[in-house]
């Protein structure tokens, strides 16, 4: 279960990568670090509201959690749009390497904001959800496979968010514009679509999802640190590639598959090999099926 639940955060972050990649073909390096800053926003909001300390003294403060999530979603969304505006938009017509390098720069800036904000040590995230294991409570015995309240919480937030995203892309006017820009931005512009606005909206969506993922991550794993973004980003990117980069359904699927695989690596090879496993997976996909599970042919485009 840890695998699937972790897969849910990864999928949400991977969606941010894949949305941006699908529309402007940029690997947004800073996305993982955006997620990291999101966890800090949640932490600060909860501290501000007085829920910094310990478990279940007052029950679960749903309202505070909601507030923290909204704060993180707004923060990440706006920050992502700002980063796009400052660091990527002026480079829209530059060679491919330029925005990529710029994104690395932004990622460094984010990491350091995180470092100055919460310091170099891992921060404890308040454990605010009830400890409740459905399997042992309902069936009366403890198994290796657990399905806790936390798992339920994460999944019941993540899955509607993904469905919501799918709805936005499929059925709204903006979603239609996004698909048009992804296909051919120049043509879309000729058709009267404000390409810059659509791209900004895409970054906003990606950021909002990362913000939501950050609250779930914090509540589920109960810690956060400024270097979190790097590994989270690498995993999410692998998930996006696994599912077929640029493909929204693929990213969601890839996230869950990757979460499971990472959990298996941890169980059978030990926690210190987790990132090695993830990365090896990335190389293996790139060798055998670079288009990913659900991707369409992109091939050797210049």
């Amino acid at each position, binding site marked *: 279960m840890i695998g699937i639940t972790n897969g849910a955060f990864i999928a949400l972050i991977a969606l941010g990568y894949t949305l941006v990649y699908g529309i402007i*073909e940029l*690997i947004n390096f800073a996305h993982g670090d955006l997620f990291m800053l999101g966890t800090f926003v949640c932490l600060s909001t909860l501290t501000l509201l007085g829920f910094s300390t310990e478990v279940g003294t007052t029950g679960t403060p749903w309202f505070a959690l909601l507030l923290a999530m909204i704060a993180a979603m707004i923060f990440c969304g706006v920050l992502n749009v700002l980063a796009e505006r*400052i*660091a990527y938009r*002026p*480079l829209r*017509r*530059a*060679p*491919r*390497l*330029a*925005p*990529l*390098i*710029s994104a*690395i*720069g*932004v*990622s*460094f*800036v984010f*990491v*350091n904001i995180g*470092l*100055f904000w919460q310091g170099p040590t891992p921060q404890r995230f308040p454990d605010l959800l009830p400890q409740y294991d459905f399997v042992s409570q309902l069936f009366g015995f403890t198994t290796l496979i657990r399905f806790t309240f936390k798992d339920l919480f994460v999944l019941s937030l993540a899955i509607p968010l993904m469905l919501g995203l799918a709805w936005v892309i499929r059925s709204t006017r903006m979603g239609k514009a996004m698909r048009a820009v992804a296909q051919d931005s120049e043509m879309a512009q000729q058709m009267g679509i404000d390409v810059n606005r659509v791209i900004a909206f895409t970054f906003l969506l990606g950021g909002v999802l990362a913000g939501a993922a950050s609250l779930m991550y914090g509540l589920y794993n109960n810690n956060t640190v400024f270097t979190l973004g*790097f*590994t989270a980003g*690498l995993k999410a*990117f*692998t998930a996006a*590639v696994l599912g077929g980069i640029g493909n929204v359904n693929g990213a969601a699927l890839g996230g869950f598959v990757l979460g499971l695989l990472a959990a298996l690596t941890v169980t059978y090879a030990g926690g*210190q*090999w987790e*990132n*090695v496993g*993830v*990365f090896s997976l*990335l*190389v293996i996909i*790139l*060798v055998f099926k*670079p288009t990913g599970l659900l991707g369409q042919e*992109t091939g*050797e*485009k*210049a």
Partner: protein
Amino acid sequence: MKPNPPKPKPNPPARGRSTLGWWYTATGKARERKLWGTAIGIGAALLFPLVNSALGLGWEAKSIPITLFIVLALGLNVVVGFAGLLDLGYAAFFAIGAYTMAFLTSTVSPIGFVREGNHVNFFLAMFVSAGVAAVFGVLLGAPTLRLRGDYLAIVTLGFGEIVPLVIKNTPEITKGTQGMNPIGYPEVPGFANDIVAQVTGAPIRFAIDPIPWYYLIVAVLMLSVLITARLRTSRVGRAWAAMREDEVAAASMGINLVSTKLFAFALGASFSGFAGSVWASYLQVIAPEQFDFSVSIFVLCMIILGGLGNIGGVIAGGLLLGFVDRVLFDWINGFVHGIGSAIGNEDLRLMDVSRSRQLIFGIALVAMMLLRPEGLFPSARVRAELHAAEEDEGAVEQERAVLVDIER
């Protein structure tokens, strides 16, 4: 994979070449400038220790890492600047070179034969390290270079993260976080040492004296400059430039994209391995933390700051960043601490400015991309490439640039 078109016969060199070789690609004033620049550069590099001791700067220990990082930058420049492949895991090859050196010369080497005192000659080990790094470069590059550039960036990024992790996780081979120590010193043949002792009054002692290290690394640097400069205008160098500018066009002109890219990638990796082997021996102790992502980014910053693809620019960028990192931060720290103790502010007195170096590099990367993407000292061709899009007469500009490039 597209089927490779038949290889055209190699062209005979169109212009006469003398032993001066690469200066010949420039003519007139440009060649004169280049010659003087090279001469002054070599002179400055050779005389630096004398100037340093005369002025009492005490920079000899700082100049060695700076010079070594310039070697790294030159290698990365081949990959990123010449061939246009973004490699974000460059430090991994640096680590591989360093650990190869350690395996071949250290008394704690996992290879029993070496551990028993039969360490490999330093200079031989240097080249072996470069070779091993190149092999890893090929192994990593072969699957990913068929894909578009962004994938390479992310795979190299992952590789750069994984190599230190693997080193950390296999303590029985690499000693893990504890690090490997000691590592073999360069041995100078007896007769050479005698000559040096005659001239300078003391034999070469790598173990206690930084000066021989400095000259060794300067020699490595000069070799690197020579190789990269020669490559730039060679057949494969021109193929890199063509590929960087337009892959499809380059492929249709008969360039084998995969092998050309792979060569650039392996060559860059071997430079990194070469530098890594010297670094290991110089530091005498290597641990996985020394080779993390920030090293790759630091080197990338050097070449972007200096000017992608331009050797002089890369060296200048490396000197500048190295100076900022090793000397200026110290000064600023001292200055801030001085103010802190003067006004009695504990925070200022203990503040470490270099902790924010990553932040400064990050901002510098973004700012460079926005304001001057061609770097401070760009090559004419890259400058034209990066500015062509914003100008209406882009094509004209590019053509002019190619002409300028031929002229130089």
